[in-house]
């Protein structure tokens, strides 16, 4: 089984956690079973994240304040972390932290 090819995009400042790259094409290595969004988040933490993990992850998900979109749709429509990734999916992470 070959790897899974997906696109990851960042916005709203989330790119600053990932070396200031707004868009990355990645190939997720083949693994047993399916890739869920939760697996992706932890894979990103180990492979792409350049800042402290607590700025990105909290408990078993992204921190509150980071919105996730799967193919331009809110991940709350897709059962959030349980969504099973498919080839060519576009996952967008948008940070919503603002001054105040």
């Amino acid at each position, binding site marked *: 089984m070959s790897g899974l090819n997906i696109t990851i995009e960042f*916005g*709203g400042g989330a790119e*600053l956690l990932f070396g200031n790259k707004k868009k990355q094409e990645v190939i997720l290595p083949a693994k047993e079973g399916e890739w869920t969004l939760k697996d992706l988040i932890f894979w990103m933490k180990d492979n792409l994240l350049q800042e402290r993990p607590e700025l990105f992850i909290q408990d078993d998900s992204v921190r509150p304040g980071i919105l996730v979109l799967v193919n*331009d*749709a809110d991940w*709350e429509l897709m059962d959030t972390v349980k969504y099973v990734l498919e080839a060519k999916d576009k996952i967008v992470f*948008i940070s*919503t932290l*603002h001054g*105040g």
Partner: protein
Amino acid sequence: MCSVGDDNLEEKTSKYMEPVPKFKLDDNKCNKCRASTPCIVLRGKDAYCQACFLSGTTHKFKAFLGKHRFVYPNDKVLVYHTEGHPSTSLLHFLRSGLDLSTPKKLRFEPIVIYIEDKIDLSSEERSDAAEFIRKQVEEYKFPLHYISLCDCVKKNNKVAECLVDDISKLSIGDNDKENLNQVLNSKANTTNKRDILKIYKKTILIEAAKHLGCKVVFTPELGIDIASQLLTNVSLGRGIHLALDVGICDNRDEDVKIVRPLRHFEIKELAMYNHFNRLEVVAKKEKLENIYSSVQSLMKNFVGGLQNNFPATITTIVRTGDKLAMEKSLEDNPRCVLCRGPQENRNEELTSAESTSFSHWVSTRSPQYSMTPVERYEKSLESFSVAGDSPYCFACERLSHDLVVS
């Protein structure tokens, strides 16, 4: 374990409200048009398709302006622009409203102001942010003015002198943080520092609006900002100015009104609005903040945490706040020199704040034992001049101890 007040509760679990269950989509259709596939969930329960979401969001903004009528055709409006999703959405709402060709077109003249206050970043990052703002506002074809918060505080709030319209004239210095801290007492806590800087920024907005001939200022506060500000105000002794600080319109200044057109929005709506419209926002490198470092961040965290499990939290707080008004009799009272809000009414009897200062005053005097206790009390009360000539309101009086210059 203390069990006072628990008598009527049989089970421990019923002590707390159940969090609202997480979203489940029944049919895969937009809540409004009932035809398209939804792409966003709002309030944890309502799913909308992209077209319905975008038109609903724009409508909400225009409905706010239409309902309250603060701005008249050809008025100039000062728009406070800063980093983050809300103010970018605000500029886009304004541009698309002005460019309409229907009778609902907006008919006023926005002028954008950027207050450079990012003293925690390096000079280079601050210049980059300012440059980003310049390009962004240029795209929207709005006039842009810059002002350095530090510069302004140093020059004793002479806003007209510090306002520049060319980015090259914006002063960004390495020592800005130290300079700004010099104005404040080094022992000032974070809560007071944030409160003071907030007041300074508001003063800048009002003075800049006057200088540029604007009668109205738009600020980009969201529902969560309003809700946490409301609770912060109460805890910092600013309850008296609550209606001004969190209401639809702050009219403490006679000539300039501060209006909060985004107060019924949540951050998710605007972040998605920006994403679907492909708008870039000024990103700020975020630091992990100790939520216990200030009352403001504690309140924000409290309100935000509740909102996660009970999606009606923020609207409930905001709508409750809308029912509070300032007492009419206060309007003609002398103004506080710092926040410019009206001061409290003086009562015959001591208020609790005055009683506290009386108690402080009396216990720092050496007692005269030649008198009886009753005489001593009466004499003390007589000679205690109620702090009636303080130029500050109750909350700012407390802040004033942290100001080196005022």
